[in-house]
């Protein structure tokens, strides 16, 4: 008795092969569609905004008149906020990662902290805004300042930085640590002089991506109540300010059509800033990538 009926197999073969080709092309089409969406998005932003970006646009404050509106206060404000977010989130994030990877024992507490971090990463950014509004703006009396917004953003991106730093630290091979211990180094000396230098490229790459997320986030700033009409530059970390995404949000909501172009120009400035930060991350990754 034949287990395989060759006639049936032959008959189905063509159908199966056609099906294979058809679906392969459908899957390829879906991939190209997704890429196309990105291309259209970028194309729209550039063609809509490019005509409006000028030296004046970068130098002017926001205005009721579209032709006079500019991003200066927002650009400076966003960068000032970054100056708070970067040290705070890096210090807390890398510290937590070192603790979890190098010091923490396998206990329930460690599992809890780890689980907490991954759940925190899934909390919507607007909820962080509510946290910032209650704790930093009202309870600690920081007002709608760079510090309040910066601390809120730091907490928002903290889980991302911790996870990135953990991965970077984990990828440092144990043999390096053992060699260091063998030379008589203590644990902290080993971490400071062997593990961290080896892990820094990975930490930086992940952190810069997280920081660029902080630059583009709008929702927490809206909830905190960051103003839009700001005609001055921030004087210190406790002064009021406005940020680039806030200006874009404000312009996009206005009914006059001209402001659509101003918003698009603002988006272009934001995107250039993000692309700049991302290319630094890519550069660091390619330049310092260690393969053990």
């Amino acid at each position, binding site marked *: 008795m034949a287990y395989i009926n060759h006639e049936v197999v032959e008959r189905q073969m063509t159908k199966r092969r056609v099906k294979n080709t058809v679906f392969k092309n459908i899957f390829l089409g879906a991939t190209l569609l997704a890429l196309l969406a990105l291309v259209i998005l970028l194309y729209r932003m550039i063609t809509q905004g490019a005509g409006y970006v000028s030296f004046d646009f970068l130098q002017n404050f926001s205005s009721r008149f579209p032709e006079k509106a500019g991003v200066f206060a927002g650009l400076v404000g966003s960068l000032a906020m970054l100056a708070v977010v970067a040290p705070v989130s890096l210090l807390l994030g890398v510290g937590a990662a070192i603790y979890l990877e190098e010091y923490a024992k396998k206990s329930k507490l460690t599992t809890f902290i780890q689980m907490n971090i991954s759940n925190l990463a899934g909390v919507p950014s607007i909820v962080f805004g509510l946290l910032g509004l209650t704790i930093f703006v009202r309870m600690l009396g920081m007002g709608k300042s760079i510090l309040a917004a910066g601390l809120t953003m730091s907490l928002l991106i903290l889980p991302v930085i911790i996870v990135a730093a953990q991965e970077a630290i984990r990828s440092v091979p144990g043999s390096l640590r053992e060699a260091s211990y063998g030379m008589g180094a203590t644990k902290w000396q080993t971490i400071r002089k062997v593990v961290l230098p080896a892990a820094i490229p990975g930490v930086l790459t992940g952190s810069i991506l997280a920081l660029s997320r902080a630059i583009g986030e709008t929702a927490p700033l809206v*909830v905190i109540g960051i103003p839009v009409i700001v005609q001055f530059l921030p004087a210190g970390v406790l002064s009021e300010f406005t940020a680039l995404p806030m200006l874009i949000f404000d312009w996009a909501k206005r009914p006059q059509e001209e402001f659509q172009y101003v918003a698009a120009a603002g988006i272009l400035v934001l995107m250039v800033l993000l692309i700049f930060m991302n290319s630094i991350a890519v550069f660091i990754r390619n330049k310092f990538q260690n393969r053990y």
Partner: protein
Amino acid sequence: MKLVSQKREKSLDVQQMIADKKKKGLGRKAEKIVPVLLFITAAVSVLTTIGIVFTLIFETVEFFRRVSFLEYITGTEWLPFAGDPSYGVLPLVIGTLKVTGIAIIVAVPLGLAVAIYLSEFASDKVRRLIKPILEVLAGVPTIVYGFFALTFVTPMLQKVFPSLEIFNALSPGIIIGIMILPTIASLSEDALSSVPNAMREGAFGLGSTKFEVALKVVLPAALSGVLASIVLAMSRAIGETMIVSLAGGSTPLFNFDVEGSIQTMTAYIVQVSTGDAGYGTTIYYSIYAVGFTLFIFTLMMNLIAGWISKKFREEY
């Protein structure tokens, strides 16, 4: 020769150095203090969670002193700005679910197709080129997507559906779908790729085509990872704020119409934040109640995603 002798003269008394070092004691203290400091930094993330939960509970309790809990969870009218305000959250929840549903309809088939293509059909070179490009989609700020939805997608859709309003559920839904596509594609691709090759080769050996292997062997084996990625993407769609604020409108309605203006939970919080509702008013506390509702929704999604990937993981 001379060099060697010079070095000999300067030879170090290592034991003496160790003893000196130990006497200084600063390094010893660091060994004890540093872990404590690092533990504090790790504790900040836990404190953040506690802060979020307490903030939300504290202000939500104040809200429910003024508005009945039953009215909140069963009411079908959300009119906080009316002279006689009513606070039934269901219209906001429906608005959120409409947008999330559309996003999922867009993102799941596309995302899975991309994941299967990259994992099963594409060459290594193509995969390494396309995956990071797709991840750029996840890095685009949501305010940019919102602007794109409002000024490009909505007008385009209006040509196809003339009855579509300027603010609607369809356009932000589609754009959120594109925004979460990389999440599904990237995480599912990881799950598909981690299915061992021996299983594929077994199926090829029995005469399967690539498509059959992908659909009947690899996809079922990676199902837990794929499902988890979808739930995670849903949670992102629920919490998405700026896209729906710009393109969704601010009309909380209890219906299933996708062509008209809607309001999501997140968009309501933004509407109140940009308006001038004073501190201490019922409207002010309502954003915390809505925020808490949103938090519970996303937390459930994240826990389900974690549970799926643990529970149904196939070990090879």
